[in-house]
């Protein structure tokens, strides 16, 4: 049972120490070729959630230098610098309203920065799952919403039976016949993922995919991301989720700076406390820097 497999993997993680956890996340970067192998992918296709792989990802993924964005008379962020390595999973954290979603919109070319550079590698196919789940059509069934009524759908470069694809997002049997308007928040979230990941991407931009999910689905999403042969940037507030998957953390800190850290959330927190001292224990109200 795929559920049991995911529980075993989580228990193994629970029993390991912080060092072991770090090493495991890091190993993902070295094992990138293995993740890409047909054999590895077919072993994971039966996972509760399975994200279809896109084309093979090259070495250059995303490079951001000196990025700056203002909003009215407020400075949202400035001097944002990071390089996303091949195979990495970057957890993005910070208080609401600091510009995390704006970064995604800039990477997707939906918004223009006020300064700095973004370079996206030639092999990169971005898959963007935004936060708005309003574009789902309430009058359609789950299956219709994803498949457009087609029995066979195209995922990137290959074809798959649409019912099997929808099933990979944990919509089993009669669940696929449920009307979108009757879905819970967590189910809408999964449907949204299924619909948007259909395009077959090798770099995912996921904006708060962990909201409203129960622990079973969170665990399944973790397994899906760990098996995904690409890179992912994931905005999330779920510390456990971030600790399980993240190879890097991009943190919007309270003073307005954006820090890129190699390691998972816990590792980042240790580093932050060393940098900021005792004050770091309590968060502070968001104060946007004003432009002169």
């Amino acid at each position: 049972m795929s559920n049991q497999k995911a529980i075993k993997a989580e228990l193994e993680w629970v029993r390991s120490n912080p060092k072991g956890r770090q090493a495991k996340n890091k190993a993902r970067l070295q094992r990138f070729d293995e993740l890409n192998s047909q054999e590895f992918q077919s072993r994971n296709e039966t996972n509760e959630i399975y994200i279809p792989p896109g084309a093979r990802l090259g070495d250059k993924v995303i490079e951001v230098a000196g990025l700056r964005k203002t909003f009215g008379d407020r400075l949202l962020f400035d001097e944002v610098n990071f390089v996303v390595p091949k195979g990495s999973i970057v957890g993005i954290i910070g208080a609401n309203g600091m510009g995390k979603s704006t970064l995604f919109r800039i990477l997707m070319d939906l918004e223009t920065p006020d300064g700095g550079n973004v370079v996206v590698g030639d092999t990169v196919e971005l898959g963007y799952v935004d936060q708005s789940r309003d574009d789902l059509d309430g009058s359609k069934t789950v299956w219709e919403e994803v498949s457009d009524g087609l029995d066979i759908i195209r995922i990137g470069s290959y074809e798959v039976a649409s019912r099997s694809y929808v099933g990979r997002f944990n919509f089993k049997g009669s669940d696929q016949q449920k009307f979108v308007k009757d879905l819970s928040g967590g189910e809408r979230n999964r449907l949204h993922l299924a619909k948007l990941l259909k395009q077959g991407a090798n770099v995912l931009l996921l904006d708060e995919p962990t909201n409203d999910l129960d622990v079973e689905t969170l665990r399944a999403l973790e397994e899906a991301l760990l098996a995904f042969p690409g890179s992912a940037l994931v905005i999330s507030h779920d510390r456990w989720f971030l600790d399980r998957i993240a190879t890097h953390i991009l943190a919007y800190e309270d003073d307005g700076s954006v820090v890129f850290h190699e390691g998972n959330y816990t590792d980042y927190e240790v580093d932050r406390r060393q940098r900021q001292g005792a004050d770091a224990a309590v968060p502070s109200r968001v104060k946007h820097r004003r432009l002169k």
Partner: protein
Amino acid sequence: MAQYVYTMNRVGKIVPPKKEILKDISLSFFPGAKIGVLGLNGSGKSTLLKIMAGIDNEFNGDAKLADGIKVGYLAQEPQLNPEKDVRGNVEEGLQEAIDALAGLEKIYADYAEPDADFDALAKEQAKLEDIIQAKDAHNLETRLDIAANALRLPPWDADVGTLSGGEQRRVALARLLLSEPDMLLLDEPTNHLDAESVAWLEHFLEDFSGTVVAITHDRYFLDNAAGWILELDRGRGIPYEGNYSVWLEAKEKRLEQELPQGVEPKGHQGRIGVGQV
């Protein structure tokens, strides 16, 4: 203090047309227990909390709150007072302390009246001073600031009608935590909080001396702060003593024994929570 802060005896809930969302739940809650509630969507978690909060009275069986126990409940979509700004709403959580401070000011003024009854005033003064002491009322400003920062509240003078859903929830949570009830019932308290605020809330609840019953998917909270997991499965309530890791171990064992398809877990009677008796 009572042996249990709350007891449920064979509580069930049926919603029309005939869906039994809670079945035969019998549980007794110890004072000071920290309980995480887990279960799939639609397993009746919010309904259970509404019954415990005394908001849903349409259920079968008996449920009883111990005498003198003050309950604080955070709904999924909490209501704020639209007449007041952010600060006014949060201050409602400290109303008793604020009233005591104002009352004391009035007494000081009354002493100066020519026909003042000094005995009566002194008696009233002592009463108010006790409340001020117990409620730490001299530190109101500091406590308001700590809560506002930790939960990243919008500016004090913001009109609550203009706030986002997430901001409204954070204001309601601050108001609730400052009111220091004996039993906190929290329906998804970590939704709309960022990682740092969740970490702060986790420590706050760990240190909180009252009972906490929280519906949450935050596994660090369930692992670090919870002493019990109450799993709702097809209407039944199954208590586990231990944190998330312990519950996960138990779950794996349960799956290994593989309950045949369609067999429902048995109902449980349980006492939940490690007592601070």
